[in-house]
């Protein structure tokens, strides 16, 4: 298991938390909670080693459109970049409902 952390500048307040997904083979769970200050922090635990650059690319793209101040925990069991992005977008959708 590899642990990876990132943080991104952010400004918009988020009021609701959201939980989506299951840590099943090829899947992941995302916990999105309101954060503090002007940074968003992302904590990743993944069963697949050596994909830090891929994670960074996915999250760079996600935070190029999303500006909420959040704390995101990702528990990953081998999700593809596509499914990671879908789960992130689903978490945002739920938190903004």
């Amino acid at each position, binding site marked *: *298991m590899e642990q990876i952390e990132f943080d991104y500048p952010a400004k918009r307040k988020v009021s609701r*938390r959201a*939980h989506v997904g*299951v*840590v*099943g*083979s090829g*899947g992941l*769970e995302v*916990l999105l*909670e309101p954060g503090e200050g002007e940074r968003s922090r992302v904590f990743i*635990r*993944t*069963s697949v080693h050596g994909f830090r650059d891929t994670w960074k690319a996915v999250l760079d793209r996600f935070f190029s459109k999303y500006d909420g101040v959040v704390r995101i*925990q990702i*528990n*990953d*069991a081998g999700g593809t970049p596509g499914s990671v992005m879908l789960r992130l977008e689903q978490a945002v959708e739920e938190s903004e409902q």
Partner: protein
Amino acid sequence: MIPSRDRTNFLNRQSFLELDARGRAASLFDEGTSRELVGPFDRIESPWLAIQDVTPQEDDGCVVMKGKIAGKASVVVALEGAFQGGSMGEVSGEKMTAALDLACADSEKGVPTSAVILLETGGVRLQEANLGLASVAEIMASILTLRKHAPVICVSAGTVGCFGGMAFAAGLSSYIVLTREARLGLNGPEVIEQESGIDEWDSGDRALVFAINGGEQRYAMGLADALVEDDTPQIVNAVRRFIAKGLPPIHRSSQVELYRRRIGALDTSRQWDPSELRRAWGTNGSKEDNR
């Protein structure tokens, strides 16, 4: 009687199998009455998985919800089959035990509280070995205490099914609800093949596995109380019906003499056919014994 497959509803049904544990648990409650206890944001995860290089899940694959079903106080405990095969670890086991014990405490205080356990599990989580085994023992003890006051309803919809130590939990419950996609058994087919060889049981032969462990066969043998389609309203109705019914006159697992007699009468010198077992143990026979 085995209900025939409902083909008219096939396209319009709301699949229960496609829901995750949280979705399954939530679907059972009367609208607007449920709340989750010890959810993922409480971050009570297994302390043993990360040190063995396994990614944990924040709810440890066990979802507990409290609310009302058919107007009656109920607790639902759902195992997530997709996370570590729905296996019982220290945390998931303790969550289930505590939920059952709280239901029991409420029942003793005059609010009979039924429990619905949604079992999609291969049994004890091997990474947590003895702690998982201890959990299964505690769950069994808690079911036995609760079922004096209020029914414990086991639903196994599939596709993991219910095997290993948690099959005891299913066996002790007041009612068992299965679908044709469910499988129920003590030792799973893969375990039997691994221990006794492919001649004993070819676990890759799905027709054979379902002819023996499958929901339809288990129901036809009188080892389950309802066989329903993979349709959420059908499963909800079955659960509501059993909660409304209350405790059975006698629990299946209390009929020790009946099952001793049946097992004693089995001639194990020859291979039995699943359909013969249906005739020998069948639902009708069980109903007579239940009077």
